[in-house]
C-alpha cells in the first residue's frame, strides 16, 4: 500500500478532529458544542499541526510537496482542474449564504432573577422589609403540624384554582396554557428557583406579577397576573407553603446565624 503523504495525514487529522468535536462529542457524548468553542479547539489543533510540520525543514518540504506537485505537475492536470473549480465554487456558495442570511428577531437578554424592592407591600400596606419578612405560617411546621397541613391544603386549593393553568400539575411550568407564553412560566421543580429565594421574594413576585417587575433588567414580558388583586395575604402565604411542600424544596432563610 502506498504511504499517505504528510499533507494528507494533516488533512485527515483536521477533518477528523472537526467531525469528532461536532458530531461525536457534541451530539453523542454531550449536548452540541457551540460553534465558537469548536473554532477555538480547531485553531489550537491547526497551530499544533503547523508546529509539528515546521520543526524540521525536511518535514516542512515533505508537507509542501503534494501542494507543489498539484500546482505544477502536468501528470496531475485533472486534479488541478478539479481543485480550481471546487475552491471558487465553495467560496461562492459560502459568501452567498452569509450575505443572503435573513435577519432573525432579537432575542431577549433578560436577567434570570429580578432584584426585589427593599420593602414588601400588599396593595399599599407595608408588610416590612424584604430581608426580614417571614411567612407567618411557616412556624406551624414545627409548632403545630396539623395547622401547617391545613395551610398547605389551602395553598393547594389556591394553586389549582389559579396557578395551575400556566405553572402546571407538576409545578414545572409546563401546563396547557404554558407552551405558547413567552417567557415560559416559572418552573418550581428547578432546583435553582425555590432554594435561592426567601419566601418574601415569592410573596412579592406573586403579589405584583409581571407589571410589578423592576425597571432594570427589562424586557420582562411576563404574563404573570397581579395576584394581590385576587388573593388575600394569607392565601399568598399558603400557596408559597404549598409550593415548597409539593416540590420538597425549602426557600432560603437567614436563620440564627445572623
Amino acid at each position, binding site marked *: 500500500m502506498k504511504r499517505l503523504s504528510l499533507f494528507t495525514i494533516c488533512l485527515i487529522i483536521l477533518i477528523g478532529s472537526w467531525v469528532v468535536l461536532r458530531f461525536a462529542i457534541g451530539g453523542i457524548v454531550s449536548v452540541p458544542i457551540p460553534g465558537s468553542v469548536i473554532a477555538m479547539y480547531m485553531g489550537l489543533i491547526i497551530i499544533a499541526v503547523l508546529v509539528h510540520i515546521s520543526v524540521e525543514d525536511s518535514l516542512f518540504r515533505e508537507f509542501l510537496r503534494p501542494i507543489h506537485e498539484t500546482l505544477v505537475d502536468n501528470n496531475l492536470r485533472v486534479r488541478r482542474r478539479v481543485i480550481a473549480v471546487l475552491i471558487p465554487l465553495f467560496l461562492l456558495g459560502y459568501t452567498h449564504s452569509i450575505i443572503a442570511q435573513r435577519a432573525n428577531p432579537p432575542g431577549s437578554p433578560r436577567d434570570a432573577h429580578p432584584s426585589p424592592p427593599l420593602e414588601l407591600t400588599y396593595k399599599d400596606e407595608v408588610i416590612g422589609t424584604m430581608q426580614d419578612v417571614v411567612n407567618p405560617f411557616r412556624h406551624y411546621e414545627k409548632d403545630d403540624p396539623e395547622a401547617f397541613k391545613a395551610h398547605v391544603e389551602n395553598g393547594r386549593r389556591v394553586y389549582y384554582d389559579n396557578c395551575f*393553568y400556566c405553572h402546571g400539575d407538576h409545578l414545572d411550568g409546563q401546563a396547557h396554557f404554558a407552551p405558547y407564553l413567552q417567557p415560559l412560566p416559572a418552573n418550581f421543580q428547578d432546583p435553582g428557583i425555590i432554594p435561592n429565594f426567601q419566601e418574601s421574594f415569592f410573596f412579592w413576585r406573586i403579589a405584583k406579577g409581571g407589571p410589578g417587575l423592576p425597571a432594570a433588567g427589562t424586557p420582562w414580558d411576563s404574563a404573570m397576573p397581579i395576584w394581590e388583586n385576587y388573593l388575600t395575604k394569607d392565601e399568598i402565604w399558603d400557596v408559597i407553603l404549598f409550593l415548597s411542600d409539593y416540590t420538597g424544596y425549602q426557600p432560603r432563610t437567614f436563620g440564627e446565624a445572623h
Partner: protein
Amino acid sequence: MVNRNVVTLLMLVFGLLCAVMLVHAQNAPEASERGKEVYEQSCAHCHGTEGRGDGSAAENLLPKPRDFTRGLYKIRSTESGQLPTDQDLFDIITIGMPGSSMPGWETSLSADERWEVVAYIKTFYNGFKESEAPPRQISLEGKIAYSEQSVETGKELYVELGCVECHGNVGRGDGTSAPTLTDEWGFQTWPANLAQSWNFRGGADTEAIFKRFIGGIAGSPMPAFEGDSFLHFGLSVEESKRLTELENKDEMTEVEETESEKFYEKMDVAVDLALNRAEGIELTAAEQQTYDDAMKVVYEKSWHLANYVKSLAPEERPEPAIGKNVLRSQYVQGELPGMEDTAWEVLQSRHFPLVGQVVIEPRQFNPTIDSVNIKSFYNDTEVAFLFMWDDRTHTTGDEIDESTGKPLEDALAIQFPVKVPQGPTAPKPYFLWGGRLPVYLWHWKASAPEQVVEITAKGINNAEVQAAQGALQAQGAYTDGQYKLWVKRALKTDDKKDLQLEPGVFVPIAFSAWDGANGDVDTKRVVSSWYTFVLEPVPSSRRFVYPPLIAVLSLGLLFGLRAVVQRRNS
C-alpha cells in the same frame, strides 16, 4: 328432624358468611395505600377525593375532569359499552389528553405509581369488580391503508352517516347542532375540530380515530358505530346503496316497497342482536354470524372514514411563529392582493397559538379558539394581512351577556406597540392591551365585517377609540367554521397614535380573540403574549456581486500561486 335443622342452620350460617365476605370484598380496595396516596397528591384536586370529578379545580374546567364513579371512559381500545382495559387507563395517565387540562404524568410519576393509580381509580366503580370477562377489545384487523380513493369513500360516508351535523362540512366542528351538545353530566361539550388533530384527546393516528368510531366516546354525544347509531346497520354496502336510492324516490312501486321492507326487517334483526349482545345475552352461532356480518360493514366503512378524518388535518401542529418561523411579510411590486386573490396561496401561513385570559376578571379558563394563522404582503406604501382562525359558531351579537350587558359576538383584535421598542433591552408595553406604555390596536367585530376600528389602549380596561379613523381597509367572512379577515393599511400614517411601519424592523404583535358562543366578552377572551413580525426587506443586490467577486479572486490567487511555484522551480 334434628339433622335437617342442623343442616338448615349450617346453610344459613354459611350463606351469611358468604354475604359478609362478598360485601367485604366489594369494599376492600384492592389498590394499595400508595395508589390512594398518589391519587390524593396528584389527581384529587381535579377528580375529587371520591373520584366524582368534583375537585376544587373542576369548577373552572371544561372539558370537566372525569367522574370515575360511572365507569364511562372516553378513550378506550374496547368495544361500545365496555369498560376500558388497565392499559387504556395507564396510557391516558401517561400521555394525558391533548386539548384538555389533563397532562401526561410520565415525567412526574413512576410507572409503578401510575399502575397503582390505575388500580385505585378502578375502586371508584364497582363494575370493574363485577365484570368477570375481560372487556372485548376492538379488532384492528383488516385495516384499510390510507389512499386517495379511501379518503374519497370516507368523504362520502362523512356526509351519509351524518357526521356533518356536528362536525360541519369540512370538519371544523361547526355543524348545525354543535352549540346544543351536552355530555352525560349535562355540561356543554363541543364537537372536535377535525382540522386540529393536535387536540384529539385520544391521539390522532388512524387507529386511534378508528377506535373512537367503533367504541364511541363514552359520556359524550359521539356515538359508537353500532346498532341504530349506524346508518343501515345490518345491510351490506350494496344493499345500503340500494336502500338510499329507494328512499330518495318520490314514489315507490309495489315491488320496490316490498324490497325496502325486506331491508328494514334485516336491519331490525341486526339492531336487536346488537342490543342483546350489549346486554350480555349470549347469541346463537347463527345470530353471531349475522351480527359479525353487520359489523364487518361497519369496520370497513370506519376505516375509510378514519382515513378521511386523517386527511383533514396536518400531521402535527404547525410550529408556532417564533424564532425562524417568525411572520415575514413578503414584498411585492404593485397592487396588494385582495382577500380572495389566489396570490395568497404562494405564502405559507404562520401559526400563532392563543391561550385563555386568566389574569383579569372575568377570565376565560376554557378557550374554544385555538390559534390564529396569518399571511402578509407589503409593497412600497401599504401592508396587507390575512388572518384566519377557526370558530365553531358565527356569532354576531344578537345575544346579550347577562353579567356585562354587552352583546356576545365573535371578534379579533390585533395589537402592536405604538412605538417599536428600540434595541433588545427596551421594554414592550404590557402584553394585555398595554399599561404604562400604550398599545395600538385593530379591533374587528363579526357584526361589522368591513370595518376595523383603530384603538389606543393603556390597559385592558383603559382603551380609547382613536378620533382619526379610516386609515384601514378591511373585509371579513365566515365559511365552514373559519373566519378570514383581510386588513390593509398604509405603512406610514399622519396619526401620531398609529404605529409606523418600516421594512426590516421587528415589530411586536399580539392578539385577542372572542368566541361569542363560548361566552367571550370584554376581558373574557383568548389572548397571546407578544410575538414578532417583520416586513421582510427585499434581499440586498450585494448577494449577486460579492460572491462571484470572491470566487474570481480565489481563482486568481490559485493561478498566482502556481506561477510563483513554477518560476521558483525553473
